[in-house]
């Protein structure tokens, strides 16, 4: 704090945190009490119920601001998961929580928040999942918290936050044919690394970011989690307002970084001529250009097109264009899992499910699916998987020796067809 009247402007995250704490100005490092606009729980929320009662809390602070969306094991695939679901259903009934996305109306929690307009510009959103960062794409501060902390949020409607310093990532240049928002965020991860944004806000801007659709912005904000970030953000614009026009559940407070905002670091990236990218085992920041990886003819056992990072209708449509009329390579298991039930229905209407099943892929019900190694599509030791998801740490999708390569949805299809890691541009 300068204290001499010459205080700096604020970054986008600082603007939102000032708003939700009722302050005119905040600075990085300051601890604030933020009013929560939206609290989201998935199965981990079952561990919120015990602490909520232990705190002596009687009622949830605002049932209209709480969304429960089960997604990791849907429908319940183990007895343990069934118990978690039952705890949540019972809690929702007792507390009269009306916004429960249960089996049949389900989807990955972040996608449920996105497509139903639960998070809007200027919001503070917290969720019991690390990829809650995804919702920052609408110009909100959205962050993951644990279930004990969520119990306090449900009781009080607020939580303490340390105002994070902001890294600004300015992107210019046009993404080439076959190069996607996923490749862009992998490129950023290769530079920022898994610790480069720990505790920080990542603010994306520049002409390339402005040109991205909302689904693409969700993809890049989603993977700020892998950079260690508290939140990832894109300032709202006409695309944001159009996306939320019919669905916004509460009033928007569009906020923008001040021209004289104080950034801890600015990274400029030009994506002109950038090839598709791949994150190699065993870290999402072990990023290499796809042509170099493809040259090694890495054989795969399983391919996964799914997760909150990349299983929206746009991702599946793009994948279906490459898949149509082709076959999944002999000996390869290709799992496609849409991010929500509404996306599943849209795929059905557009005939996309048939494209994949005719090719020999398995098109599953919507869930987190193979991404986290606890439900389906689990890998055995020595297996190799190409995936459109967000993490490839040891043991992420099953056996700790299994090797996971992260890539765009288009690249997963090219890889499923050839049976080895393949540059999708070779098939376009």
């Amino acid at each position, binding site marked *: 704090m300068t204290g001499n009247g010459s205080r700096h402007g604020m970054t986008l995250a600082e603007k939102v945190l000032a708003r939700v704490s009722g302050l005119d100005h905040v600075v990085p490092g300051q601890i604030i009490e933020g009013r929560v606009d939206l609290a989201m729980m998935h199965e*981990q929320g079952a561990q919120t119920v015990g602490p909520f009662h232990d705190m*002596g*809390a009687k009622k949830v602070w605002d049932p209209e601001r709480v969304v429960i969306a089960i997604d990791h094991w849907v429908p319940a695939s183990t007895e343990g998961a069934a118990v978690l679901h039952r705890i949540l259903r019972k809690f929702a009934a007792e507390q009269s929580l009306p916004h429960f996305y249960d089996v049949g109306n389900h989807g990955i929690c972040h996608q449920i928040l996105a497509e139903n307009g639960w998070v809007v510009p200027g919001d503070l959103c917290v969720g019991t999942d690390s990829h809650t960062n995804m919702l920052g794409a609408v110009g909100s501060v959205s962050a993951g*918290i644990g279930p004990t*902390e969520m119990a306090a949020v449900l009781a009080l409607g607020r939580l303490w936050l340390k105002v994070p310093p902001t890294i600004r990532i300015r992107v210019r240049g046009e993404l080439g044919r076959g190069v996607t928002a996923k490749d862009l965020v992998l490129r950023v991860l290769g530079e920022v690394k898994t*610790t480069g944004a720990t505790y920080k806000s990542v603010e994306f801007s520049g002409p390339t970011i402005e040109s991205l659709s909302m689904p693409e912005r969700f993809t890049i904000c989603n993977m700020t989690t892998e950079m260690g970030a508290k939140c990832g953000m894109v300032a709202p614009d006409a695309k944001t307002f159009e996306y939320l026009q019919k669905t916004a559940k509460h009033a928007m407070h569009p906020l923008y970084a001040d021209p004289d905002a104080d950034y801890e670091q600015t990274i400029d990236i030009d994506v002109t001529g950038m090839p598709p990218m791949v994150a190699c085992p065993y870290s999402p920041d072990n990023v290499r250009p796809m042509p170099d990886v493809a040259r090694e003819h890495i054989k795969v056992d399983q391919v996964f097109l799914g997760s909150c990072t990349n299983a929206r209708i746009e991702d599946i449509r793009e994948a279906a264009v490459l898949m149509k009329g082709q076959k999944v390579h002999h000996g390869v298991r290709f799992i496609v899992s849409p991010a929500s039930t509404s996306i599943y229905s849209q795929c059905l209407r557009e005939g996309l499910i048939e494209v994949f099943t005719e090719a020999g892929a398995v098109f599953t019900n919507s869930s987190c699916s193979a991404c986290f*190694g*606890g439900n389906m599509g689990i890998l055995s030791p020595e297996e190799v998987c190409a995936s459109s998801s967000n993490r490839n740490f040891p043991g992420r999708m099953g056996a700790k020796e299994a090797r996971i390569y992260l890539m765009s949805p288009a690249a997963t299809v090219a890889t499923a067809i050839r049976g080895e890691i393949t540059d999708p541009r070779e098939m376009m």
Partner: protein
Amino acid sequence: MEEIIRGRVWTLGDDVDTDGIISGKYLTVIDPNELKKHVFEIALPEFAKGARPGDILVAGVNFGCGSSREHAPQALRAIGVGAIVADTFARIFFRNSINLGLPTIEVRGVRAIFENGDPARIEMRGGTVTNERTGTQIRFPPLPTHLLELLDAGGLVEKVRRELAGQAGA
């Protein structure tokens, strides 16, 4: 929370992620006493059998990165870990751990001064970590008052319980 924490050290490397602390296949387990049997199955397999109450974890950078699962610090607390000291922590793990009342301290350079099995001594408010075998000491900025109070209360549940009880009584 004790002002001075002493214990035997287990060392870990950089980027120990929460999958490495508690694998995804145990996420439907709620009972911390069951969870603790599987702690570090991937990152430090000998830990679950060999750990004694009061042991201290010393790790490198970005400890607890990855998934937000609170199962990770819950399992560590259940097995009796007295404190976790690391060069840096991932943010959700850090919050979860403090919220559960588990002393979690960021000390740059700490990993380099310990070997497995060394005795450690931590002064929470004094801001020092000492290897009692070698005598090497590192100073660190103590946790903010807000977080020390949370640890003193024994975690977030107790802190909010007192706050709500105070409101009801007011």
